[in-house]
């Protein structure tokens, strides 16, 4: 046993898979200690990009510090004139016949662009000449607003009003006034932004990973136990029992498992579909291949001499199966179990993607997150990559690590595959 374990952990594939899987598992277990947020609590409206969000209101109450950043103006300009507007400026200059081959929309060239712009833009000139692409009033207004924004003195002071009514006081805020982020009463770090419901995607993802692993574990255990029972009985007892059990297994093989899953699932209705129900249904529709392969392994074992000797020693069927057959196929069963867990997680994700997942009001799962991302246009209209890409990555990582562990074990237990 000790020797086998050492061999298993010397297999690089198994080790890599094991480390990835354990890191995912540990994250799932440890994360809630640090972040106590409810994974389904909506923090805002719609998709928020990943980043740290600081309350504007609370920054007024925080102390101000004077910091003179030399590039402060530049940075402000860059953030007020986005790439889209820079392209408009370039287009205008091109239409006017200015040579813009040395310019582009990048930050490095931004100052040169402004210089060229200031030399060439004139409101009256734009109105008179009606350059191509900028002939309409609306387009000319856009250019004017853009020009105004560029000409604003961004270092100028603005005023902030605190309080309400008569007690309100107005303070001037200088361009060089700063607040310390720690002193702002309310700020939130959203490394993966929020989803369409305004939920923190990272917290949701960690919870969903945990739930999906649980679904996979329950589904995998049920499939393995069922498959093992059927396979052992059919293989060892043989005869009529074998025929009956294999007939049932054949029926399950002929009916596409996924279609069966969808049918059972939609018949249940959304409210009655809990996490456990979901896992149980996945489990009882996927035991067939475990049963088949266990059966064939048992058939090759049941005529071995040590089994015959055990029979001659008067051991019962239960004892022979559990002590003379099961230990010999244990490594195989562990491998099958790992694959069943992996396919259980994938099955849940597929079902949920189709909108047949567990009740969405209770807990998030990886599949449900994908479904929400799809429903609310995260990968079409909103272009919110943070709402779906980490989920895809997580599903891929889990099944990758489990499959890697499986091939690693296969290499250890199957001598013909050893290098």
């Amino acid at each position: 046993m000790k020797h086998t374990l050492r061999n298993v952990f010397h297999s690089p594939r198994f080790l890599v898979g094991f480390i990835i899987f354990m890191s995912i598992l540990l994250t799932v277990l440890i994360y809630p200690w640090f972040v106590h947020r409810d994974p389904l609590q909506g923090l805002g409206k719609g998709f928020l990009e990943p980043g740290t969000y600081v309350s504007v209101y609370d920054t007024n109450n925080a102390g101000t510090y004077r910091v003179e950043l030399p590039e402060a103006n530049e940075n402000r300009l860059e953030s007020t004139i986005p790439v889209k507007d820079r392209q408009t400026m370039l287009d205008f200059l091109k239409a006017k016949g200015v040579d813009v081959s040395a310019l582009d929309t990048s930050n490095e060239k931004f100052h040169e662009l402004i210089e060229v712009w200031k030399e060439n833009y004139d409101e009256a000139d734009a109105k008179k000449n009606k350059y191509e692409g900028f002939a309409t009033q609306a387009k000319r207004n856009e250019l004017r607003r853009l020009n105004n924004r560029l000409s604003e003195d961004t270092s100028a002071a603005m005023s902030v009003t605190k309080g309400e009514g008569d007690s309100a006081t107005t303070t001037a805020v200088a361009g060089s006034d700063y607040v310390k982020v720690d002193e702002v009463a309310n700020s939130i770090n959203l490394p993966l932004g929020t989803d369409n419901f305004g939920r923190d995607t990272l917290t949701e993802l960690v919870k969903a990973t945990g739930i999906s692993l649980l679904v996979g574990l329950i589904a995998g255990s049920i499939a393995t136990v069922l498959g093992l029972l059927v396979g052992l009985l059919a293989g060892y007892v043989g005869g009529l029992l074998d025929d009956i059990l294999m007939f049932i297994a054949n029926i399950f093989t002929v009916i596409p498992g996924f279609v069966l899953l969808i049918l059972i699932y939609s018949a249940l209705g959304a409210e009655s579909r809990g996490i456990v129900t979901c896992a149980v249904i996945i489990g009882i529709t996927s035991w067939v291949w475990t049963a088949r392969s266990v059966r064939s392994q048992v058939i090759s074992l049941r005529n071995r001499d040590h089994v015959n000797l055990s029979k001659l020693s008067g051991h019962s069927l239960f004892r022979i199966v559990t002590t003379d057959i099961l230990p010999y196929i244990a490594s195989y069963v562990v491998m099958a179990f790992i694959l069943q867990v992996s396919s259980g997680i994938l099955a849940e994700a597929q079902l949920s993607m189709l909108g047949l997942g567990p009740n969405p009001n209770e807990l998030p799962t990886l599949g449900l997150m994908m479904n929400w991302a799809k429903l609310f246009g995260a990968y079409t209209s909103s272009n919110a990559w943070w709402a779906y890409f980490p989920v895809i990555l997580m599903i891929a990582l889990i099944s990758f690590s489990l499959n890697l562990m499986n091939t690693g074990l296969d290499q250890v237990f199957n001598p013909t595959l050893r290098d």
Partner: protein
Amino acid sequence: MKTNEKNKAVIEDTRESVSFGTRDKDFSKEPLCLSGRGVTRVFQTGKVTTVAVDHVDFDFHKGELISIVGESGSGKTTLSKMLLGLLEPTDGEIMFQGKPRDISTGAKKREYWKGIQAIFQDPFSSYNVFHKIDSVLLDCIDMRGGRNLPKEKKIEMMTEACSFVNLKFAELTNKYPFELSGGQMQRLMIARIFLLKPNILLADEPTSMIDACSRATILDMLLKLRDETGMTVIFITHDIGLAYYISDSVYIMEHGKFVESGKPDKVMLEPEAAYTKRLISDVPKIHEPWDLSTVDLLNYQS
């Protein structure tokens, strides 16, 4: 035939120098312990039918040492599995102690196996590698109804059984079977039989996987055990020379049928079936070139 004459001469020589134990005893007066009429076993895979054992009749008497000799694939092992009750015959009847054998239920099977035990060909695959040696021997004590004996008594019995086959129980306890050599494993099998003391022992080529030196020891122990307990031994082998030395009666098996049977002297010295003659001439002899002319090449090619 020239070879036959020589064989005869060699055998006559050996007869004078070797003790043949119960060879000359007439066992036909002893009660029958196992007999069969028309015992047949057919294996069917898809449309291919293989008749492994084809309507064989036999009478094994109490205390007799019977050899069943044949080449690989002649159906010896299938027959032995049927005798042990591990395989059901497709046709025919097996009588146990004069009555039709009834092993229809698990309890009846267990009762039957108290009377008949086996030693298998390959000692390396005969043991469950997950169980310690102690549990193999303790199972035998349990089977003889010694489950509730005090621990010291059990250890004493196991020590006695091991010393019978020249093994030291103190060295074996808490070891796994795969830590022993092939010869030691096969001796442990005999120790198992020593504890069980069955009426019939079926030894299925017990020495074919063992080197020549250990082979003699194991045969010696088997014969010693037989002398002590008076059990019937059914010895299955492909080695006709070995069969001649140890048996009280010999059955020659070819393609699932018994082609010849009787006292070893009769079978070896006056073989009637061509197959027996071939088997005898196939045995290599010292001081004599090996005669391969009788090898049925056509048969092997097919």
